[in-house]
């Protein structure tokens, strides 16, 4: 079984974003989703540091250190984009104005609990940024993460053991094996992305799966 690459995962998620959506893309792997959006769809990216209509990364030699993404990389602004200050930016995030946010994940539980901000290690400073604001405030939360940790342990679990970012907030998880939706009954597999049997996918998952009819 060949798992999807990170770029394939990002491309798969990108396919499910509706044209005209307002979307926040988190730091790390989710940033790749931007590469797979069709400009004609006019999906407008929100950046928490005060920008709507964020464009691609700045070309070498054209970087502006006062035009950066949430990941602090030099970016561009699309024609028609806007800048605003932090209170307004977080009004967008916390007040249910964003259609979707895409974040990375450490663990997602079958009740929709999300853990993606802290490994809970002593001596390491906690750093939450805007993760809790997005988790509680966006209309939908999609998580883009590997199905299993490097040591093979499932990241889709019955209950999160890591510190929570938000309870019951996740709508869907896009992994390197499957698209999984969180419904009242738990994890529902919408799409298998690799050649894998239901039983094998279940064996890679830490909570019980049901399979949606194609």
């Amino acid at each position, binding site marked *: 079984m060949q798992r999807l690459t990170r770029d394939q995962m990002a491309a798969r998620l990108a396919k499910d974003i509706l044209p005209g959506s307002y979307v926040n893309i988190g730091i790390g792997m989710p940033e790749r989703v931007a590469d797979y959006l069709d400009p004609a769809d006019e999906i407008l990216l929100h950046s928490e540091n005060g920008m709507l209509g964020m464009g691609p990364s700045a070309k070498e030699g054209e970087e502006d250190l006062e*035009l950066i993404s949430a990941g602090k990389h030099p970016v561009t602004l699309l024609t028609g984009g806007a*800048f605003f200050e932090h*209170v307004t930016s*977080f009004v967008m995030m916390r007040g249910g104005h964003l259609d979707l946010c895409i974040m990375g994940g450490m663990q997602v539980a079958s009740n929709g609990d999300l853990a993606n901000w802290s490994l809970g290690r002593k001596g390491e*400073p*906690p750093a939450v940024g805007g*993760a*809790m*604001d997005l988790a509680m405030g966006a209309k939908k939360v999609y998580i883009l993460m590997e199905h299993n940790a490097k040591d093979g342990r499932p990241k889709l679990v019955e209950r999160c053991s890591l510190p929570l970012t*938000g309870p019951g907030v996740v709508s869907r998880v896009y992994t390197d094996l499957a698209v999984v939706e969180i419904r009242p009954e738990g994890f529902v597999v919408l799409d298998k992305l690799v050649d894998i049997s239901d039983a094998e996918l279940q064996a890679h998952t830490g909570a019980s799966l049901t399979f949606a009819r194609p």
Partner: protein
Amino acid sequence: MINKFIGGLHEAVADVHDGAIVLVGGFGGAGHPTELLHALLDQGARDLTMVSNNAGNHEVGLAALIKAERVKKMICSFPKSSHSHVFNQFYSEGRIELECVPQGTIAERLHAAAAGLGGFYTRTSYGTDLAKGKETREINGKQYVFEYPLHADFAFVLAQKADRWGNLVYNKTARNFGPVMCQAAKTTIVQVKHKVELGDLDPETVVTPGIFVDRVVEVSNPQFSS
């Protein structure tokens, strides 16, 4: 005649007292008022509580103040970065306190202080470690956490242009926390790249009206700031 321009950086920060709570604008390097922070380094105030999204980068600005052992406590949302080694070291050695606050909650606590509000309920952080010990309340079937206003003695902010009444405009994503920090502090000190005449700023596009600004210093060729 109102004239908020001050001759120099050192004069601008002269009255920052030991134990002061200082808001520092910026998100990463964008909007970080580095020259004001270096003036504060020279000025000597200690036991400071600094409120900023990040905890400083490399060894300039906020990181330089931390390294000089002048910061007692940081209130920030994201102290970690690829260049935050000064803060990381002080934190791991227990030499600096940290209050980690969700980014939107910092912004809204500043807004509450600015607007004379006694606090607010937010869904952010409900059910997490950051809400431990905080009052919660169910409103229309959803759970909320109570947050207090975040008052401050001083704000250090970087802006693009200012006139002598203190009206400000910013540049791109360097705006970030600047406007709300100007509003939330008792004394707001602004480092600005360009001094302009009254009337040069289009009143339709002024971002921070001068009532929220106390002092402006022109630093046209910043040595450190972006």
